[in-house]
């Protein structure tokens, strides 16, 4: 993934007062080829104002101050930089607060680094998302208006949920997608599950979209989730 050229021009600003956590996040994102700058909240806000950041990762509480205040101020000024809020405050109310203040996503601590990386990827991807009526990966094509899916010439019948699941993958090709992201984005379920329902849904979807004898379009990423193979 580090060879993706588009990543190298994007600076991610990291606002985090816990040094160890910051070091880990920096290391994780840098190995994935991002340019990350560890900044104070004031520096980050200034950089965001002049458009010098592709996105911002913001700890909810920095040195005892609620960083949502700064975020709200930035949003009022019309600064549109995508912001991922990370926080140990995990209740639904806190998440809602974070999103209301202008956060684009909210991740609660502790989280797996792959989860963070996946969110960052999805968020940067959102930027280049264009309004399109057709999504395509290899010979798999989805028509968003007709609500149809074709693999080569063969029409694939999908249930509405399967269609939305596949659409999410097609909108994020080549990106790691976690189970939590799918639950949240496809089903709008904001709680964690102790069962492997999501895996069953993926496996059902695979059965419908994959051709026999060729590797699956959706691959498992161990310890993280799934990825739609963009080069298929």
């Amino acid at each position, binding site marked *: 993934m580090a060879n993706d050229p588009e990543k190298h021009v994007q600076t991610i600003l990291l606002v985090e007062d816990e040094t160890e956590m910051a070091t880990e996040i920096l290391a994780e994102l840098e190995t994935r080829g991002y340019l990350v700058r560890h900044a104070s909240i004031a520096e980050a806000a200034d950089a965001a104002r002049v458009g010098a950041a592709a996105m911002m990762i913001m700890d909810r509480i920095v040195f005892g101050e609620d960083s949502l205040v700064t975020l709200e101020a930035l949003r009022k000024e019309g600064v549109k930089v995508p912001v991922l809020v990370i926080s140990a405050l*995990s209740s639904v109310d806190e998440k809602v607060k974070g999103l209301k203040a202008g956060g684009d996503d909210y991740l609660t601590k502790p989280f797996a680094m792959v989860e963070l990386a996946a969110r960052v990827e999805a968020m940067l991807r959102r930027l280049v998302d264009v309004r399109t009526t057709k999504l395509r990966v290899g010979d798999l094509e989805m028509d968003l208006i007709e609500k149809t899916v074709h693999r080569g010439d063969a029409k694939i019948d999908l249930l509405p949920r399967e269609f939305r699941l596949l659409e999410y993958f097609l909108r994020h090709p080549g990106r790691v997608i976690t189970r939590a992201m799918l639950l949240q984005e496809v089903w709008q379920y904001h709680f964690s599950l102790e069962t492997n329902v999501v895996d069953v849904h993926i496996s059902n979807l695979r059965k419908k979209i994959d051709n026999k004898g060729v590797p699956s379009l959706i691959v498992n990423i161990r310890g993280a989730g799934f990825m739609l193979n963009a080069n298929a």
Partner: protein
Amino acid sequence: MLEFFRSSAVRVALAFVLVTTAATTAIFGLVYFQIGEANEARNRLILETEAATSVNRSVDELRTAFEVRLTNDLRRIDYAALFDADHKFMFGNVDALPAIPVDGKSHFIAAAHVPGSVDRLEPAIFVVRQRPDGTVMLLGRSLLETLAYGRIVQRALVAGLAPMLLLALGIGAYFARRSSRRLTAIHDTIARIMKGDTDLRLPIGSGRDPIDKISRDVNLMLDEIVRLLVQLKGVGDNIAHDLRSPLAVVHAQLERGLESSSDEQLRSVVKQALAHIDKATLTVAALLRLADVEYGPKSRNFQQIDLSAICADLFEFYEPLAESKSIKMTLETQSPVQILGDSDLMREAVSNLIGNAIKFTPENGTVSISVIREDGLPVVRVRDSGIGVEPGERDKIFQRFYRTSSGHRVPGSGLGLSIAAAIANLHELDLRFTDNNPGAVFEMVGRRR
């Protein structure tokens, strides 16, 4: 004593006494003033009229009239005298003309010598008039009566005020002592509560005065604070309890890893350690979630939600999982079953029940979900043909972390049912277990009010 005067009741009583005294004194003063004024005005009129009508009488007639008048004046309040043209005394009971104009009008003299006495001085009104024969006639009347009225009024004032003052002070003292006793009791109770006696509550008296009202509010507040304290401690204990064992395991594993001779071995140890840490993290998240549901703000934004729609949604979500285990899953809804609630929370609760049912039901079993109204009460029922719950364990399954002996091999935090129960409770539903022979029935039933 100082304490006594600081008491608000005593201060109020004193202020009341002061105001009453002032008001009463003012009323008495007004009465006195009005009576005195009226008396004086009447005397002035009488004297002036008499002086005018006596002008035409002869000196002898006057002498007789004066004698009769002064003889009959037992109270010694009348003054009458005649002086010649040179203002020399002729007869009567006043031997010298006072220093007032000779104009037939009444004049006030603050200290007139009382006839027949040596040095008694009294306020009086005098009229001095020139007669046609040149003589000067003096008529006067003491204002002693008015003074007497004043003294009566004063006595009445004292006689009336004194008992009233005493009464007010007494009542004030009584209430002050009563309220200070109660305040002291409250103060002592608060001190003991602050020292850690959190089961104590403020004493409540007969029940209707402000102190009782405030005490009741404070007691409610204490209940809430104690509840939060208990939950905080509970959450802390639970987290500590549930982190200790995975930490110990991870510790042991990592130690073993240090001893390992090959990279392969080390990797496997690290993987196991990571898995344990992940599990601990999940448990902490579940515990915090439970605490959030159980003790979070009670005033959530509840809206009308449809249990049927929520179950239909989850049915569709879980169906593939059931199919993968060849479990026959059915849904019976009686759309719509509306309740006031939070759809995210409700989804989580029902998701836990359905997830459990599938988890604990072996292949080729059945899971049936029904959403109905029974006797007007909303019911969500999840029935399975799984392993069920042993009779001895039925009252424990809703406890935190409890994993049934037979369910131990199935992964899970052991908090799912606790969270579901907490969410049900928040929606005024009861989560109950009944036997399905074989299998389990978990149902959330609305409470009858």
